[in-house]
């Protein structure tokens, strides 16, 4: 049944480590000039699948398949030598972050040149010009200089380009891209996706591995949805997104927050978020709980001081979510630290309920601190490794007013965790559970405001949906105000009443969320919105 332009043919692929089967009986194919995406959450077996196609499933793995052929070569019984001949020349691999996927100690030129050295008889001089050519073809601005640089000396986008250059150096018919854009900012992600589309258009088959349906929808022709080592559903991208047959696929699609209106649950069949009880978010008369006035912060650097936050002002009203969006390095996290008074501002002030907050002496501020809670991206590191969940929560609830304290049970219940979790240490919890504990801890001190710094960035999309729904529900029940910081436009848009867009330490645009995203005023905002991958594009 192999079509003439079928590049990759997989039948009955299984991979197991010891007694655990992580990939079960997988069958699919990739044709020339086609992009096939494998989508799944962490632990679904998608990365192992990708690597076993290169014979790199890892130590202690057992790979079996009835058919495994690449460009017509049968690899079911390939030796290590055979694999080495295939790798690089027939199949290229692009991994996630090039900072760690390219040897940080070797110049880019050598890393790319290695493929040529291993598989082609090119002379050193010819290899060099081929590397330069490749770098130019992936859009490297200054190839001559880039070949002498190491991955750490390049920006994230550029090194990802270099990584792609190394994968396509010999023009392999098949390119496997494992989460190639995951660590990147949206605008760079868009450029890299453009680059991959370009590669595809030259006739290369691409197997794209991703957790992000939105990214996949931008480029993939067909999608395979993986869960628990199996393909649960597969099909043409547009059809699959529009008419998912499987419950799991539906959950995945539904969990994508992009373009989901505010307060619409992301978890299908969940109870709709109740209407706010305290104040209407649209009520302009709701009192201001937190205000930032002209915040400025710079850091020393060898050349000139680096201005991380430049004259940032905003207000946050009771029961409202202010979304702070921007790319990495835009100063979002520094703003969060200034609001939490973890670092002193060079200029400006943060006011809490109209009174001084950031300008108080630490001793005087301490009693007020409980009113401003925080949830972090890496919640694990925010827990004392020696403490169990019970201690974490009791430590926090001691700070709440005596008359208004939650018990550990109540807190766990509020965030949807079983009471049994109290005895566990955060390390042994899943990412979603940890983030729930983190939220419970923030709630324990009975805060008015919670600063959420990239609270769902590290989570799988279905878990992310659960956590976002939880945050929404808690806000409605308790009249909380959120300062919600994220690089993900979809999340921000779904969660925010108002947004502020940051770039290079400044707020370039602020206003009602719907207005800012539908009718961006600032060109940067417009660019961001345009670059954000969205499912609807595929439809």
């Amino acid at each position, binding site marked *: 049944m192999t079509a003439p332009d079928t590049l990759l043919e997989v039948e009955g692929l299984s991979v197991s480590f010891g007694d655990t089967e992580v990939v079960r009986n997988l069958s699919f194919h990739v044709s020339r000039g086609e992009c096939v995406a494998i989508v799944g959450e962490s632990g679904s077996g998608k990365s192992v699948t990708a690597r076993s196609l290169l014979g790199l499933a890892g130590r202690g793995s057992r790979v079996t398949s009835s058919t495994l052929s690449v460009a017509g070569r049968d690899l079911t019984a390939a030796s290590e030598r055979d694999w080495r001949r295939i790798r690089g020349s027939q199949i290229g691999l692009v991994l996630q972050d090039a900072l760690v996927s390219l040897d940080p100690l070797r110049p880019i030129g050598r890393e790319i040149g290695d493929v040529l050295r291993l598989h082609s008889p090119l002379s050193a001089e010819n290899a060099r010009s081929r590397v330069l050519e490749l770098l130019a073809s992936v859009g490297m601005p200054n190839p001559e200089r880039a070949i002498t640089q190491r991955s750490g000396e390049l920006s994230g986008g550029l090194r990802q380009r270099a990584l792609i250059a190394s994968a396509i150096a010999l023009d392999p018919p098949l390119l496997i891209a494992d989460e190639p854009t995951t660590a990147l900012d949206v605008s760079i992600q868009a450029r890299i996706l453009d680059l991959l589309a370009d590669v595809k258009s030259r006739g290369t088959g691409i197997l794209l591995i991703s957790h992000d349906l939105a990214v996949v929808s931008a480029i993939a022709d067909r999608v395979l949805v993986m869960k628990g080592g199996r393909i649960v559903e597969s099909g043409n991208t547009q059809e699959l997104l529009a008419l998912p047959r499987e419950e799991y696929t539906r959950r995945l699609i539904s969990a994508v927050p992009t373009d989901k209106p505010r307060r619409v649950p992301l*978890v299908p069949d*969940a109870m709709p978020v109740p209407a706010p009880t305290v104040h209407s978010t649209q009520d302009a008369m709701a009192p201001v709980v937190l205000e930032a006035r002209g915040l400025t912060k710079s850091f020393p650097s060898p050349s000139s001081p680096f201005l991380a936050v430049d004259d940032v002002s905003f207000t946050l009203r009771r029961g409202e979510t202010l979304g702070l969006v921007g790319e990495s390095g835009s100063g979002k996290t520094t703003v969060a630290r200034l609001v*939490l008074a*973890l670092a002193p501002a060079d200029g400006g002030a943060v006011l809490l309920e109209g009174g001084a907050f950031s300008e108080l002496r630490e001793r005087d501020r*301490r*009693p*007020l*601190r*409980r009113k*401003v*809670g*925080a949830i*972090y991206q*890496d919640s694990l*590191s*925010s*827990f*004392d*490794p*020696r403490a169990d969940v019970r201690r974490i929560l009791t*430590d*926090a609830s001691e*700070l709440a007013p005596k008359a208004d304290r939650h018990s550990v049970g109540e807190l766990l219940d509020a965030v*949807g*965790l*079983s009471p*049994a*979790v*109290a*005895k*566990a*240490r955060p*390390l*042994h*919890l*899943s990412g*979603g*559970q940890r983030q*729930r504990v983190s939220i419970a*801890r923030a709630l324990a*001190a009975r805060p008015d405001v919670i600063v959420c710094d990239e609270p769902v960035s590290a989570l799988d999309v279905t878990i992310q949906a*659960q956590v976002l*729904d939880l945050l929404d529900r808690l806000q409605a029940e308790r009249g909380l105000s959120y300062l919600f910081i994220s690089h993900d436009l979809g999340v921000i848009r779904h969660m925010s009443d108002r947004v502020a867009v940051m770039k290079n330490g400044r707020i370039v645009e602020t206003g009602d969320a719907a207005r800012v995203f539908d009718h961006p005023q600032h060109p940067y905002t417009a660019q961001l919105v345009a670059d954000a991958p969205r499912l609807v594009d595929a439809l």
Partner: protein
Amino acid sequence: MSELDLRTAAASAAPVRRARPSVSEIFAMAFVLFLAVATVVPGLLSSIDPNAIAARDAFQGPSPEHWFGTDESGRDVYSRVIAGTSTSLLIGVSATVIGVTLGLILGVIAGFGGRILDFSVNRTIEVLFAFPGLLLALLVIVIAGPGPVTATIAVGLSTAPGYARIIRGQLAGIRSSGYVESARVLGHGPRRILTRHILPNALAPLMVLATLGIGQAVVWASALSYLGLGAQPPSAEWGAMLSAGRTYIGTAWWLTVFPGLMIVLTTIATTILGRSLTRRTAGRR
């Protein structure tokens, strides 16, 4: 809505499953147990008086009667090795305790004393580092005179800067860690943060480090004994025994081999334990 979460929670709320100890860890624990018995109740392992002199029985090779042979004064080497455990370990452990304590003091001053103190402690550590190990120990011995107590202090002192540097780094790491920050954000006071978060988290790895250090302290103390600057006869300290036995290497190999073996095995055992502790505590993070 969170059945998935609940299921995993139930699993992980169960007592933490520990990795089964490896062969080397079992050996290490058994040997440390042996050392502990030899230290606390040496009589359990040997009934011969380690200091009983029998000049006529000198230089007898290992035999069923004298497992490790006899030394130049006819004393039973096995019972001396057992009896020497407490002295040698005392020196090793006290030296490590001195080193760690000094290191802790310096490290804490650097970690909490503000910029100027941190700077000066850092320079102090650098200066102390410029006296490599034995050199500092020798200097201490020149000043205080040779002997087991001086040797212990000398070894302790010479290991202190190493500990101080690690502790300082550790404290700096913990101080800027997410959990200390989140405790601050919640509004906990500095004393509570110090006692509930920073110190407990800094001390645990320190204990591991100290375990690793004991073996090396025993080795260095034995080097001082070899140079005639450590423990005094007739105390059955391993280094002193080794140093005395070296004279007779051609005649009585057992005088050198057995105490040497004890030093080596002790170091290996403590290192294995220290490393497995590191792995186990690191696994929590």
